[in-house]
């Protein structure tokens, strides 16, 4: 990494070689530190200094004496997380939904990409891609409005128009029945995000050298066979990276989806409460920052472990594809 000695200037013989190199190094690369400084400060503020605040999870904070002087209470703030019937539920919800999302993103994303690739009309494919990508740009607030337009129990499109057309007379009270949300949430999430994944997979597919297909066609392989044996294996690295990144976030739920779209309806909590919304409620509604910090820490630590473990597994399977 160090520049070769050949770059030293004449007349430097009096100074030892190493310091000369160092000097040269700082002269050359000092500016890099300057470049990185602003972003480092931001990181410090946003990410690293708050890590010190994790001690809140172990204290019973009294505002009049301040955080530092508040009494330590060990793991007491974590009790409510684990001693409750809800602890299991929020963990289950978070993991289950994310797992479903990952699988759907993969299958639907690859499927869409394959189909786009196979379509004859270039222009039509482009047009559909554009439309498919639109939901990605909408915010969760907007999507809440859209979903509300369908699910409003009295006057939404589903209850008023579509269901009666199918002969279902009794309107479903969408915002108080937890069951349906097991399907609504994945559908909405996929609808919003699939544009992103489909495009990435499509780009990867297009990057595959045509010669493989030509050779395969000559050998008489069917289109299906080609997809199975050429396309999929060759985009495997992309699939793995994307999936790994998602697994790393498997303990983090998309707050907008679970909080906004469900309109934070209490009756739905059985199937819609996830760790993020639980932390949020603990903080903003109850105001107990010790407990909600504990929940946040639980999430961060387990999430971290999961990333490490999944990366380790990938390393075993195919070393090159691992994140680190």
């Amino acid at each position, binding site marked *: 990494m160090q520049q070769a000695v050949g770059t030293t200037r004449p007349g430097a013989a009096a100074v030892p070689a190493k310091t000369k190199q160092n000097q040269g190094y700082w002269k050359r690369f000092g500016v890099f530190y300057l470049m990185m400084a602003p972003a480092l400060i931001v990181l410090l503020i946003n990410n690293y200094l708050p890590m010190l605040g994790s001690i809140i999870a172990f204290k019973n904070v*009294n505002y009049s004496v301040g955080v530092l002087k508040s009494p330590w209470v060990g793991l007491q703030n974590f009790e409510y997380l684990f001693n409750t*019937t809800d602890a299991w539920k929020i963990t289950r919800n978070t993991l289950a939904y994310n797992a479903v999302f990952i699988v759907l993103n993969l299958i639907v994303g690859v499927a869409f990409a394959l189909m786009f690739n196979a379509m004859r009309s270039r222009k039509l494919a482009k047009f559909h891609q554009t439309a498919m990508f639109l939901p990605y740009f909408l915010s969760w607030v907007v999507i809440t409005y859209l979903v509300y337009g369908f699910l409003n129990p009295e006057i939404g499109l589903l209850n008023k128009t579509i269901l009666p057309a199918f002969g279902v007379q009794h309107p479903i009270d969408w915002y108080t029945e937890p069951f349906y949300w097991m399907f609504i949430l994945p559908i909405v999430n996929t609808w919003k995000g699939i544009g992103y994944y489909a495009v990435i997979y499509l780009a990867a597919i297009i990057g595959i050298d045509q010669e493989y297909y030509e050779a395969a066609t000559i050998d008489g392989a069917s289109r299906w066979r080609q997809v199975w044996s050429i396309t999929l294996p060759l985009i495997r690295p992309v699939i793995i990276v994307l999936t790994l990144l998602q697994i790393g976030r498997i303990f983090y739920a998309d707050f907008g989806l679970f909080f906004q779209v469900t309109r934070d309806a209490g009756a739905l909590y059985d199937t819609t409460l996830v760790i993020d919304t639980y932390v949020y*409620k603990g903080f903003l509604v109850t*105001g107990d920052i010790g407990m909600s910090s504990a929940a946040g820490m639980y999430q961060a630590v387990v999430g971290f472990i999961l990333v490490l473990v999944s990366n380790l597994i990938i390393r075993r399977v195919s070393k090159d594809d691992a994140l680190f």
Partner: protein
Amino acid sequence: MLKKSTPSVARMSLIVALALILSAVLAACGGGKDKGASSSPSASPSASASASESAQPSASASASASASSGAIDPSKLPEYQLKVVWEGPPQKDEKAVEAKINEYLKGKINATVDLAPIDWGQWDNKMNLMIASREAMDVVFTAQWNGHANNVSKGAYLPLNDPNLEAGGEKVGNLLEQYGQDILKTLDPAFLEGAKINGLNYGVPTNKELAAQGGVIYRKDIADELGLTDALDKVQTVADLEPILLTVKEKKPNMIPLFFRDGENFNSHYFVQHDYLGDTNIDGIVKKDGDDPKVISRFDDPVYMDNLRLARKFFQEGLINKDAATTQLGTQDAMKKGNVFMIMSSLKPGKDAEMANAITMPDKLKQINMGPRTVSTGETAGAMLAISATSKDPARAMMFIDLLHSDKYLVNLLNFGIEGEHYVKVSDNVIKAGPKAADYSPGVAWELGNQFLNYTFETEAPDKWDQFKAFNEGAHKSPALGFTFDVTPVKSQAAVITNIRSQYAAALETGSVDPSKADEWKSKEKANGLDTIIAEKQKQLDAFLATKK
């Protein structure tokens, strides 16, 4: 071109640069603590200055109410801005009223105010955030039913009658005694007694009616139009309401016959007579209208369960707003919208007229009192003004609160606006809406100071305050009056129970889901420490009652 400087200098300069960056950040952290939100030119509270002032005879010239005690010489006090936070919708003409208040206040206590109301839907969230962020504020609305005890245990408010109180490193002493003499003189001792936590007061209760009675408020004009007036006058129970509401639904399909929301339905504490001994989120109640100090779960009260069934029936008949379980609209604001016929409400004499004027619909509302009159800590401590622990001048804050309890001009200015613009005087103490009434009508007089000083609207009974006194007399005292539950021993369980409640309460009590869900809720509570909480509540209550004997 080679620098003659030693390599260590280059390295040093880099280290210095990094150190500068680091110290800049640390300075922001540490020094930042001193940057307050409101202006406070003097570093230390003026406690020492004003302590000697309070003994001097009154020097203020402006008209104040009869009970103003020996007071404060404003010229000896440094200027200070008080941030006043209460729960209610922000008003358009706030700045104008603020300016008027400041004119007056400077002459009294050399202070200005920054009025900062927070609307109903955001109050809980914002309050928690502001407390967590140690936002500098001075006078804050609080209520026993709104997390008062919780906030006290977090150290968010200052004790007002603690002789050893210190603030900003200086001894401040008993604020109530020093600067709150008017409060002590005018407020029924039951209020302060009933609001104590561990022997200390952390808020000054509003001087208002002491008792509460549950009931409904409805649109009189619509009722008259539909010919329902007689039927409404005969209503005694909830079941009586049904045919009336059905008629409203039939004849006025665009109106919501009965507006419910979380906390405002047949099972509101004021309607079903549940004394929650503090935080209404934590199960474990004592019946206010009885004499038994036994703490039971809400599910063990047959009235509660009946109300669930009734609510469900009404909901299925379409009499209740479909978004009852999720709406964040307050009942008063719902009525203001114009398409609501009836809401639940905690009542006192003249509440209907008071509300009607507050939402600029004079004379359109009427109330029906249903159920017994009771007094519980929820009422005595149901509306208080606390002094935030982040206040830089608690003495001044107390002075302001004292003025709200004694200064007629100030109280009415804050509550009704500027004479001639927002209201017009009909006689000495009676007013009516002015040309710009809609621009300033906070409608929360019950939160701010001494209600007995308020003007009455011409649509209200002129002897409103006498009616209040009569209302208070003969009200049934809750067996737990004066007691507030300290949640610290069962903090974890309480947090869980609160979370569980948020899953079920709104949907169940508004009738949005089938009452059978209540069984699920109950078993969940039991599985998560309900019995422990009830036992603790009973234990503390028994100890409290023993001291009263």
